[in-house]
C-alpha cells in the first residue's frame, strides 16, 4: 500500500514536471521592433491569460529555413512556432519542414462570422502559412538634398534618374525587387514584368538598366542598413522595409520621406514546424487561435507600421502606442499609399531564384 502511494506520487510528480516543461514555448522571430510588437500584441496578453505558459524568443528568423532543416536532420526540433516571410514559408512547406494546416479549423473566424480562410483571402500563399502582416519594400529619400533644387522623387523611376536626383542610392544585395523595378522603369508594363524577366534578353535588359546606376549604389543586406545610411547622409534614396522607414521618420525625426510608388508587398507570418509532440502542438494551436484573431492582428499595428493580414482587422487599426499618431496613413495598404503597388510573384521566384541570383552576383562582381 505504501509502495503504491509512493509510486503514484512519483508518477504524479513526473507528470507535473512534464507539464511544467511543456508549458514553455520557443518562438522564433526577427528581433528588434518587429519582435517587440509581437511580444506586446500577442505574447504578453496570452501569458497574462495563461499564467502557466512561458514564451521564449529566438531571433533566428533570417536563417530559419536552414536551421529548421538542420534540426529536422538531427531529429530534434526545439522551436514551436516560427515567423518567416512568405517565400520562406513556401520553401519550408516544399521541404516538408512546416506543417500543413487547415486555416478554418485552426484559426478564429472574423467577428462577423467570415471564415478565417476567407478573411485572410489570397494572402494564404501556402498551405503551411498563417500570415500576420503585410509589409512592403519601398524607398525613403532625404528631404534636404540641395542638388535636387527643391524637387522630390515621386516616381519609382526617379531612383534610376541620376540627372534629376543625383546622389547615392542603397539597394538590397539580391535580384528580387531590383530586377522588377529596373524593368518597370525600362518601359515594361507591370503585368508583363515576369514574362520579360523569364527571357535571357529581359534579364539583360534589367541588368542594363541597373548598370546605369550601378556606380552610385551602396548594396545592403540587413534591413537596418538603409535607415542608417539615410541618417548618415551616405545615400539620398534607399530601399528598405516600410516599418524601418516609419521609425526613422516618425520615431527618430529624421528629414526623410516615403516614396510609396511601386512598393512591393510581401508577407510575414507563422509556420508550425513538423514533428512537434502532441502536447506542444496543442499549446501552439491554442496560442495561434488567440494570436491571429481579428483584434490581436489589429493590435500589432499599434507598435509597428505594418498592415494586418486579415481584411477584418483593417478598420480596427488605431493609434501608435507611444507616439499617439494615427497608424492607418502609415500602413502600406492604406489607399493613398497603395495607388501603385507591385505584387511579387512567389512561385516565379521559387523557380528563378537560384539562376538569377548566380547571374546577379556575377553582375555585381564585374
Amino acid at each position, binding site marked *: 500500500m505504501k509502495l503504491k502511494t509512493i509510486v503514484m506520487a512519483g508518477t504524479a510528480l513526473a507528470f507535473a514536471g512534464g507539464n511544467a516543461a511543456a508549458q514553455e514555448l520557443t518562438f522564433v522571430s526577427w528581433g528588434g521592433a518587429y519582435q517587440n510588437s509581437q511580444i506586446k500584441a500577442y505574447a504578453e496578453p496570452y501569458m497574462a491569460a495563461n499564467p502557466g505558459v512561458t514564451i521564449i524568443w529566438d531571433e533566428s528568423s*533570417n*536563417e530559419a*529555413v*536552414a536551421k529548421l*532543416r538542420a534540426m529536422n536532420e538531427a531529429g530534434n526540433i526545439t522551436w514551436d512556432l516560427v515567423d518567416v516571410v512568405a517565400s520562406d514559408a513556401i*520553401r519550408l*512547406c*516544399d*521541404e*516538408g519542414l512546416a506543417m500543413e494546416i487547415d486555416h478554418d479549423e485552426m484559426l478564429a473566424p472574423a467577428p462577423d462570422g467570415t471564415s478565417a480562410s476567407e478573411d485572410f483571402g489570397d494572402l494564404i500563399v501556402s498551405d503551411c502559412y498563417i500570415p500576420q502582416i503585410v509589409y512592403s519594400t519601398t524607398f525613403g529619400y532625404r528631404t534636404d538634398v540641395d542638388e535636387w533644387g527643391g524637387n522630390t522623387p515621386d516616381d519609382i523611376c526617379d531612383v534610376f534618374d541620376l540627372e534629376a536626383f543625383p546622389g*547615392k542610392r542603397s539597394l538590397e*544585395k539580391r535580384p528580387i525587387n531590383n530586377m522588377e523595378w529596373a524593368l518597370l522603369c525600362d518601359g515594361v508594363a507591370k503585368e508583363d514584368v515576369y514574362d520579360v524577366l523569364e527571357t535571357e534578353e529581359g534579364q539583360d535588359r534589367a541588368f542594363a538598366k541597373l548598370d546605369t546606376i550601378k556606380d552610385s549604389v*551602396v*548594396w545592403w*543586406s540587413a534591413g537596418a542598413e538603409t535607415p542608417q545610411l539615410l541618417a*548618415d*547622409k*551616405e545615400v539620398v534614396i534607399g530601399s528598405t522595409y516600410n516599418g524601418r522607414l516609419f521609425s526613422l521618420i516618425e520615431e527618430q525625426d529624421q528629414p526623410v520621406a516615403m516614396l510609396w510608388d511601386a512598393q512591393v508587398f510581401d508577407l510575414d507570418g507563422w509556420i508550425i514546424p513538423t514533428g512537434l509532440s502532441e502536447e506542444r502542438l496543442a499549446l501552439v494551436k491554442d496560442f495561434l487561435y488567440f494570436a491571429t484573431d481579428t483584434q490581436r492582428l489589429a493590435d500589432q499595428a499599434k507598435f509597428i507600421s505594418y498592415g494586418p493580414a486579415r481584411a477584418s482587422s483593417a478598420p480596427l487599426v488605431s493609434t501608435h502606442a507611444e507616439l499617439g499618431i494615427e497608424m492607418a496613413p502609415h500602413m502600406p495598404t492604406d489607399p493613398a499609399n497603395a495607388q501603385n503597388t507591385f505584387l511579387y510573384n512567389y*512561385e516565379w521566384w*521559387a*523557380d*528563378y*531564384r*537560384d*539562376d538569377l*541570383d*548566380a*547571374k546577379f*552576383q*556575377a*553582375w*555585381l*562582381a564585374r
Partner: protein
Amino acid sequence: MSDVTSDQVLTTQDGKPLKAALAKALRRERLRSLMLIAPLLIFIMLTFVAPIFDMLFRSVENQIVSETLPRTVVLLEEWDAGSGETPGEDVYQALHYDLMIASEYKRHTQLGTRLNYEKTGISSMFRRTGRRIADFGEVYADQFAALNPAWEDPMTWVNLMASDAWIADQQRWAASQDGPEPTFILSETAVAALPATADIYGAFAEFLQMEEGDSPTDEQPWNAVYAALYEDLADNPQAFSTFSGTNADLLREAVEAVPTFATASMKELFIDAEDGWGDAGNWAVIKTFSPAYTPGYFLSAADAQLTPDGLEMKPENQQIYLFLFYRTLLLSIVITLSCLLLGYPIAYLLAALPLRYSNLLLILVLLPFWTSLLVRTSAWKVLLQQQGVINDVLVWIGLITDAGRLVMINNATGTIIAMTHILLPFMILPLYSVMKTISPTYVRAAKSLGATDWTAFWRVYFPQSVPGIGAGAILVFILAIGYYITPELVGGTSGIFISNRIAFHISSSLNWGLAAALGTLLLVAVLLLFMAYDRIVGIDNVKLG
C-alpha cells in the same frame, strides 16, 4: 654495440630479450597517454571532425533523385538523352507511380528544389504536378468502380493483395486492438500475377501504416493503383487463374471488361499538367543527375556544368566562383602583408621596451582583441564612410573637396583596412613572443664588429625573427581566407570573399551541396598552400614563442 652478435641477445634480468621488454614498456606508455587524451580525442572526433566530414560529403551526395523516382530512373537508362525526343509512355507511367508516392510523402518538392539548381523551372514543374498527380489515374478508378462497386471497397483490395497470414494477423489485432497494427505483407500470388499493382499497392499500404497511422482495411487505394491494375490486366489476361474464390471472379470480370475501357495517356496527362514534361531537356537533367553520387556540385563550384553532351563551362554571365576564389586569395595575401608591415615595428617595439612600458603597450594591442568583432567593424564604417570622420577631416583641412570625398568603404579597400585591423593581434603576438627570445647581444656584437644599423638588423636580427613572421603570416592568412562577417559588412561588391557565398548557400539558398563543394575546395586550397609553405619556408621554422 658493434660487438654484440645476433646470438648474444641482450636480456633483462628475468631473461626476456631487452628489445621486447623495452617495446612493451613503451607500448604501455603510449597506451597510457592515449587513454589520457582519449576523452578529448573522442570529443573532437564526434563534435568536430565527424560533422565536418558529414558536411563535406554532401558535395557529392545525390541519392535524392534515385530514391524519389526509383522506377523512372531505371527505365530512363534505356532512353537516349541526345535524341532530343521525350521518353516513351512507359517512363511516364513509372513517373506517375513514383510521383504519386513522392507527393504523398511530400518529397517531390524537395526533388524539384534539387533539380532546379541544375535547370530553372523544374521546381515549379514538380510542385504543380504534385498537386494534380492524384487525379491522373481517376479515369481507371471510375471505370473499375462502375464495373463493380466492390472495387471501391478497401476490403476487396486487402483480400486481393494481402497475404493470408497478414489477414489473419490483422483480424486478431483488430479484435484485441493491442499495440500497432501488424505491418502489411503482400501475397505472393498478387506479386506474381499483378506485379505493377502489387508494387504500388504495397507502397500505398506502407504509407498508410507508417505515416498516417491508418489501416489499409479502411482506406480506398490511390487512383494510381487502379491504373496499375489496368496495366497488369491488359498485359496478362490470365492473371485471374492463380487466384481463387471472389478474387478470381472479380478479376475475370475485370479482364473481360478491360479491353473496352477508355484509356488515358500518362504522357499527355503530364504534359497537360506542365509543359515542362514535354521538354526533353528536363528529362536529360533528370537522367544526368540520377546516379547516387555526382560531380555536379564540384563542377558548379568551378563554374562548370554537366550537360548531356559532357562537361562545359557555364555561360560567362554566371561565372563567379573561380573569380571569387582568386579574389579571396589575393585579398588575403594583401591583408597578411599589411598586417606584417604594421605589426613588425610594433612587435619590435614591444620586445625592445622595458617591461613596464611594453606591458602597457601589449594591453593596447590586446584591447581591440577583446572588443566585439561587430563593434570594431561598425566603427570602421563610421570612420571610413563618405560622410565619415576621416573624409570630414580631409575636407576640413582642404586636402579634398566636398564633392571629391574618398570612397574607402563598401569596396575592397574597406575589407582590407577593417580586416587588417581585426587580424593585427594575430600577427603581433607570435612576432613579439619570438622577438622576446632574440638576445640583444647579437646585434650589439654585430655593431661592435663594424656593421651599420641596417646591416645589423637585416643580417642578424631579422633572420632570427623569421619563425615569428612565419607563424603570424600563417595564422593571419588562414583566418583571413575563411572570414565572412567583415567582408559582408564593409566589402560592398568588390570586397566580398568566397566564404560569403558559402554562407549564402548554407543559410539562404539552401544549396548545401554546393556550399560543401565550395568549402571543400577552400579547404584543399589552404592545405596546398600550407604544403607549399612547408616546402619553401619549412614548418620547423615556425614558432609561436
